[in-house]
């Protein structure tokens, strides 16, 4: 497997002129690599993922998967979205089977495989539940199982844990590391959470905003499974943060006005503050 992102650019035409979402993005992803893309919101990282998925079309450049130009969505690039995107009228196991159904896998076999992957995400006992009966984290795990059954060349994950509470997110980050080590999948993971990126990735791609392009590539050379809060991890997080802070500030300035700054107002004025009178 090889994924080549070549000079990808994306321009949106809007009523107030056009917006350059991506500019000259170049990236090569090797087989079995875990890539995390971080960047401020609106930097075009999800757009890039959608282009790889084939859901959006680049206005410039191309994406090659094993030398084949990507033009449309397909099961060789499984996608996990921020929302689980499970079908509410299907039971969990039927949801997991659905992709294989489209691929023409016979019912017996797809049921077995679905159960295998549900077991991998530790949801075998919830196979018969409907999505609305599951918690947010469980739904995301079903979606992960469904994505894994496609046996795709690459797994695209678009902030899959962003909508979950932090405890659930931690558990899923650990589980994803284990699953990645077991399945040796190539994963392209988009997030705005630096700690998440450093914890999961072989390489962290820092995206700059307006227009979005690759600002820096940072190799994370740490043993797995990586634990939250370890000193090595914190060191990497700090260094990525530094690169990212500039970009976040750039976006913030654009949204809050030019006189906005990180440095100002670090102590918030609190009208209820009694300046230690309770002592």
């Amino acid at each position: 497997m090889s994924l080549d992102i070549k000079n990808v650019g994306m321009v949106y035409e809007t009523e107030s002129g056009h917006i350059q979402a991506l500019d000259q993005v170049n990236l090569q992803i090797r087989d079995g690599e875990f890539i995390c893309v971080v960047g401020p919101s609106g930097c075009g990282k999800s757009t890039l993922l959608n282009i790889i998925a084939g859901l959006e079309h680049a206005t410039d450049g191309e994406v090659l998967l094993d030398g084949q130009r990507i033009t449309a969505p397909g099961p060789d690039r499984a996608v996990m979205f921020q929302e689980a995107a499970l079908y509410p009228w299907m039971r969990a196991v039927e949801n997991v089977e659905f992709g294989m159904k489209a691929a023409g896998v016979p019912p017996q076999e797809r049921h077995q495989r679905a159960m295998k992957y549900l077991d991998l995400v530790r949801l075998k006992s919830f196979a018969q539940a409907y999505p609305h009966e599951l918690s947010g984290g469980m739904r995301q795990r079903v979606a992960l199982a469904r994505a894994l059954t496609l046996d795709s060349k690459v797994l695209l994950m678009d902030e899959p844990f962003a909508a979950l509470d932090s405890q659930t997110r931690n558990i899923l980050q650990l589980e994803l590391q284990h699953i990645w080590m077991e399945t040796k999948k190539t994963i392209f993971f988009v997030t705005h959470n630096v700690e998440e990126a450093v914890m999961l990735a072989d390489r962290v791609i820092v995206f700059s905003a307006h227009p979005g392009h690759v600002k820096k590539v940072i190799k994370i050379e740490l043993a797995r499974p990586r634990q939250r809060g370890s000193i090595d991890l914190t060191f990497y997080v700090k260094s990525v943060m530094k690169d990212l802070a500039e970009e976040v500030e750039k976006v913030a300035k654009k949204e809050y006005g030019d006189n906005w700054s990180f440095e100002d107002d670090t102590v918030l004025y609190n009208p209820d503050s009694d300046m230690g009178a309770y002592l």
Partner: protein
Amino acid sequence: MKTILFYIILIAIWELIYKLGVGVLHWWKSYAFPSPLSVFQTLVSLGQGGSLELAVLVSMKRMVIGYLLSAVLGVTLGLLVSQMQHFGSQFNAFILGLQSLPSICWLPFAVLWFGINESSVLFVTTIGSTFAISLAVISGIKNINPLYIHAAKTMGVQGIMLYRDVMIPAALPNLVTGLKQGWSFAWRALMAGEMMSSTHGLGVMLMQGRDFGDISQVVAMMIIIIVIGLAVDRLLFGRLERKVWRRWGLNQH
């Protein structure tokens, strides 16, 4: 229990208005406002004569045929319009216009095309609910969470399977609501059609009441029409709707 009490009070008020309006204040002549008792007696005598059962059966048969036709036509039309690349929104507006046209307005056409017979009544019934169902299908498809379709496409689902396994089930809650609405439109259209051009059925019996100056029969027929309409709406469609909405994990409305 509460329901029964509600109807007892309603009938009591009716009786009171009858006593006051006809007996004491002489607002109406007795042939212009029936008492609950006379309506009840009319219902019993019509029921014993068998003409009521016959009328109900005839009307229900028309209803079922006309409604099924309109469901098939309406869903097909709705799917076609929601598939259109061009003129989709214009078609939508056009159907909305047709929907707002009372279906009895089609009667002159129906009579010219089919004559005064079964077919013309069926035509009016069918056209009465077809557009309502189409509109429900169109809005149902339009309001599908785009994520469902994106996810399906990334799994390689396309063509008929995308429709059969994703889009139609995703639109089903709205579709069922539309079918329920279509039923009540068809029911109204059928009654109007029967009153204007038919030889038997509930609408005809209501008109007979008018022709014979028998206001009790008119009200008796009105009650039967309401009861059947309500019963089908509640027992059949209401249950179906609740079941689908619950299964889909949506909130009750």
